[in-house]
Structure formats: C-alpha cells, structure tokens
C-alpha cells in the first residue's frame, strides 16, 4: 500500500538557499489553501450533516431544535417515504449496474478486436459518458417521446406490435434504467478495455491450440483476468448509482411520474428543499452514508471469501 502511494521521495531542495524560513513550513504553507478548501467545504459539511440530523431545522427560517434521534425514528415507520425510496433506489442501482457491466464488458471485448474504424468507434463509445447530464436528459426525453419519439417509431414499425409507452408509472423505472445504462456503461468500458490490452495474447493462442472455443476462452482466460478490475468498477458504479441525483431528477421530475423513481437521493432533496426540513434531509444523508459504508464492508468480505475458496 505505502509503496504504491508514496514512490521515491525526492530529496529536499532547501539546502540550495540560505535558510530564513524552516523548510517544512513552506510545505505547510503551500498545502494550506487546498487543506482549507477541502476541510471547510467537504469535511466540515459532512460533520455538520451529522449534527443537523439530530435537529429539526427549517431551511430559511431561524427555527432549530434539538430532537435527538427523532428524525431517524420517524423514517423507521415512514413506509411510503423512506422504505419505498430505499426499495426503488435498490432496484434502480442493481438494475442499471448489472446492465452497465454486461454492455460495458461486451463493448470492451469488441473494441479490443482489430477492425477498420476502431479508433473512431472507441472515441464515440466513450462519448455518452462525457455528455452533460442535462443534454442526456433532454435528448433521451426526445428519443423516447411517447407520441413522436423515434425509438417508439422504430420499435413499433419493426418488432413491437402493441403501443409502447415509456413514460408511464409501470415503465418509467425501466426507461430510467436504460437511459442510465446508456450514459454510464462507458465507465465500465474504460476500465475493462485498459485491462484487456494487457492480457498476454499467447494465453489465447495456447487455449486455441488446446481446442477451446470462443466462449470457453472468455470464461477461462478473459474473465479471471478482468475480475479484479470488475471488482473495483462494480463497487464504484454501485456507489455512484445508489447516490445518483441529477439524471433521475431531471429525467422524471419531482411529482407525478417522478414518484415512481423516487430513490433515496431524490427523497433527500425533496425533504430538504421541497419540504424545507433540512434536519430530515441531513438524517437521510447520514443514513445513505451508513448504508454505503455497510455495503462496502460486506462487499469486501464477500470478495475476499470467494478468493480464498
């Protein structure tokens, strides 16, 4: 760990000049702006969040009362709010991460082959990930439009016989999962493709001589080689999707249809800035943080156990 994070330390330059200020003071001084920013604008807010979660506080008005664990106790029985959001958020995160990994690995395998125009298609494949969220949202709302959208037209004039509705209570979660998959699968491609390029081609040549087909080569050579990358990618993607706010909020909105994809981040935003209960919003943030910490712990346990087998 240390060897990776702290490569050879260059020897200090200080001896070159007559010393007025001790050398290490300069180090602290130059690091100070960065530390102040991160301390003040990330770590302090996180701590403040914990403190806020124990209060009942209005977003604008100077109303602030100590309520202890009341916010958390409230969510325990908040079936239509908290528990439903947790359920929807879990479906969303699992659904889209699964699809992202399948599509991402498949795309990486294709992009690792040689073909005419590979460089161009590699660049193009990464592009959805670079698009600003607002552009993804308006573009997808247009493509999936229920009256004159081109996706509906293409599907109904080819494979689908009955009318498609993408923006309905029953289908909005599926639409949301597909849109998120389109936007975020390039993240999987970047990681997996980089790893694929380092696999020794001789492994495949040997397997081919032994008579292994494409599928067996994938299962026995490729998969074990990319397993460690997938481990990190899945972890990060799950954390990102579980806390994803802007794509869902902009795509489905707050009320009406949005309530069918109201995941925990959306619920947090509504509580904080819709109902102006920032204490409750902070409590939800704390709960999300605890869940992610628990998820990471369990995830590492499972992974190391399967390694031992």
């Amino acid at each position: 760990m240390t060897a990776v994070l702290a490569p050879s330390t260059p020897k200090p330059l200080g001896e070159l000049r007559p010393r007025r200020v001790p050398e290490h003071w300069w180090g602290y001084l130059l690091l100070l702006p960065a530390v102040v920013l991160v301390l003040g604008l990330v770590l302090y807010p996180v701590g403040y969040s914990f403190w806020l979660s124990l209060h009942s506080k209005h977003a604008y008005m100077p109303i602030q009362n100590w309520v202890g664990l009341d916010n958390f106790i409230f969510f325990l029985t908040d079936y239509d709010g908290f528990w439903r959001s947790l359920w929807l958020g879990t479906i969303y995160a699992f659904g889209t991460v699964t699809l992202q990994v399948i599509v991402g690995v498949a795309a990486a395998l294709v992009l690792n082959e040689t073909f005419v125009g590979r460089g161009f298609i590699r660049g193009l494949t990464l592009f959805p990930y670079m698009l600003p969220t607002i552009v993804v949202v308006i573009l997808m709302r247009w493509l999936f439009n229920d009256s004159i959208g081109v996706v509906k037209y293409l599907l109904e004039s080819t494979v689908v016989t009955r009318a498609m509705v993408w923006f309905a209570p029953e289908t909005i979660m599926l639409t949301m999962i597909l849109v998120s998959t389109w936007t975020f699968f390039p993240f999987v491609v970047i990681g997996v493709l980089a790893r694929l390029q380092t696999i020794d081609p001789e492994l495949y040549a040997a397997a081919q001589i032994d008579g292994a087909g494409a599928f067996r080569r994938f299962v026995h050579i490729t998969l074990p080689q990319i397993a460690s990358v997938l481990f990190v990618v899945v972890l990060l993607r799950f954390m990102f999707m579980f806390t994803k706010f802007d794509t869902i909020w902009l795509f489905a909105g707050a009320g009406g249809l949005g309530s069918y994809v109201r995941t925990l981040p959306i619920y947090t935003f509504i509580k904080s800035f819709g109902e102006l209960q920032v204490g409750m919003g902070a409590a939800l943030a704390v709960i999300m943080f605890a869940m992610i910490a628990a998820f990471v712990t369990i995830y590492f346990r499972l992974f190391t156990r399967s390694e031992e087998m």
Partner: protein
Amino acid sequence: MFGYIAQRTAVYVSAGILLLMCGFPLYWMVLTSVKPDREIIQAIPTFFTWDAHLDAYQRLFTTTRFLTYFINSITVAGGATLLTILVAVLAAYAITRFRFRGREFVARTMLFTYMFAPIMIVVPFYIMMRSAGLVNSHLGLILSYTTFSLPFSMWMLRSFFQSIPLELEEAAMIDGASRPKAVALIVVPMALPGVIAVSIFTFIVAWNDYLFARVLIGADELKTLPVGIQDLYESTVTDWGMVMAAGVVVTIPALVFFVAVQRYLISGWGAGAIKG
C-alpha cells in the same frame, strides 16, 4: 476459413451496433436541431433532411436568455479551472518537494472525500453558503467546483511532478532563478499534460453540474446552462428544435475538451510508463 469469416462478421456487426447505439442519438440531436418544424412533429420521422436551416439556433439565442446562461457557465467553469490549477499546483509541489509531517495523511484524506456523494453534502453546504452570503453568487459555485476537483487534481499533478527530475530545478536555481520562477518556468511546463488533464477535468465537472447550481443560484440572470436549460424546457410547450439546438451548443465545449484530453492523457500516461 469459415470460422475466420464468421468471427470477422461478428466483430463488424457488434461494432456496427456500438456505432448505432452511441452515434445515432447524437446524430438525431443534430438533425432535429436543423430540421424544419413540420418535419419534427410529423408522426413518421424523416431520417435526413434536405431543408436544413439554423432557425432553431437563432430562436435559442434571440428569444431566450441562453446566451446569458452560456456566459455564466463559461465564467464559473473558467474560474473554477484557474483556481483549481493554482491551488493544486501549490499543493502538489508542497507534497513532492518538501518533507514535513502528515504529508501522506493529508494526501490520502483528500482522496477519501470522494466517498461523499454530492447529494450527501448539499444540505449542510447550502446552509453554510447561506450564512456566508454566497448564495446567488458565482463565487460560491466556483469554490464548490474547485473543492470537488481538487483531490483528483492534486493526485494527478503529484504523479506528474514526481516524474520531473529535481536536477532541472536545481540547475535553474543555481543559475540564479528564484524558486517561484523555477516552478513557473520549469516544473509547470514539464507537467503540462497533467495541468491540461486537470483543467479539462475541472472544466467538465463545473460545466456539467446541476445540483449545486440549482441549490445555490436562484436569480435567473445568474443561472448556469444545466439549470437554465431545465427551466427553458419546463416553462414552455417544448420546442424540440430549439431544445436540441441548446443540447448541441452545450455539448460542443465538452466535445472539444474531450478530444483534447484523450490525446494528452494517453501521452502523459505513456511518459509515466517509460519513467517507471
């Protein structure tokens, strides 16, 4: 032979699917933005138009405040980029060139902050900014985006700085250059690919952000593009041609930066690999 042809066919078909999946939506956005209105709203869409024109772009810039949002976004993203480079260069220099206690601890703690998703800190962040009087100001946004990109930027620059031989700086200083001068004339130019990568990363973070811009900015004349476009989209009967035109314009800076970063990132990593 048959196996080879089958394999080649499979590769090209899959590549074709990727091309359609990622390219078609972009093509459709550009096409819609230049189509005449009657072609946009017809039930059977046209997949090409002979009657392309830029009316939608003209409507976008003349009948809405899009230009204001655009300038605001440039201001905020540009400001955040400059500030990030300044702070990250100082920090990375401190970490690679000076020995002091807690150096590694600080570097790792910074990376640790990526554990906290934006939605988890937006509530206390808003309250703090409110009491600091930085709500409805671009400065508040610039500070937030700088903070978000700082840990990544510092680590990126740190690895670049480590690959620059100390002898070069020493030589410059023996020749009479002051240390700030040696940093500005030798260290930063040699780490240019890293500085560019960091700038692009920060610019895109700031350019794309919706959440903090939504929460911290209320005044219409101060809104950045993501918030402005959302309001544009929701306030009227959707003028798809104009909305897609907005999408194209917002994408262009991200595209330009993306193309630039790709090349520099690869060459930067390559140089790092040679160095070991």
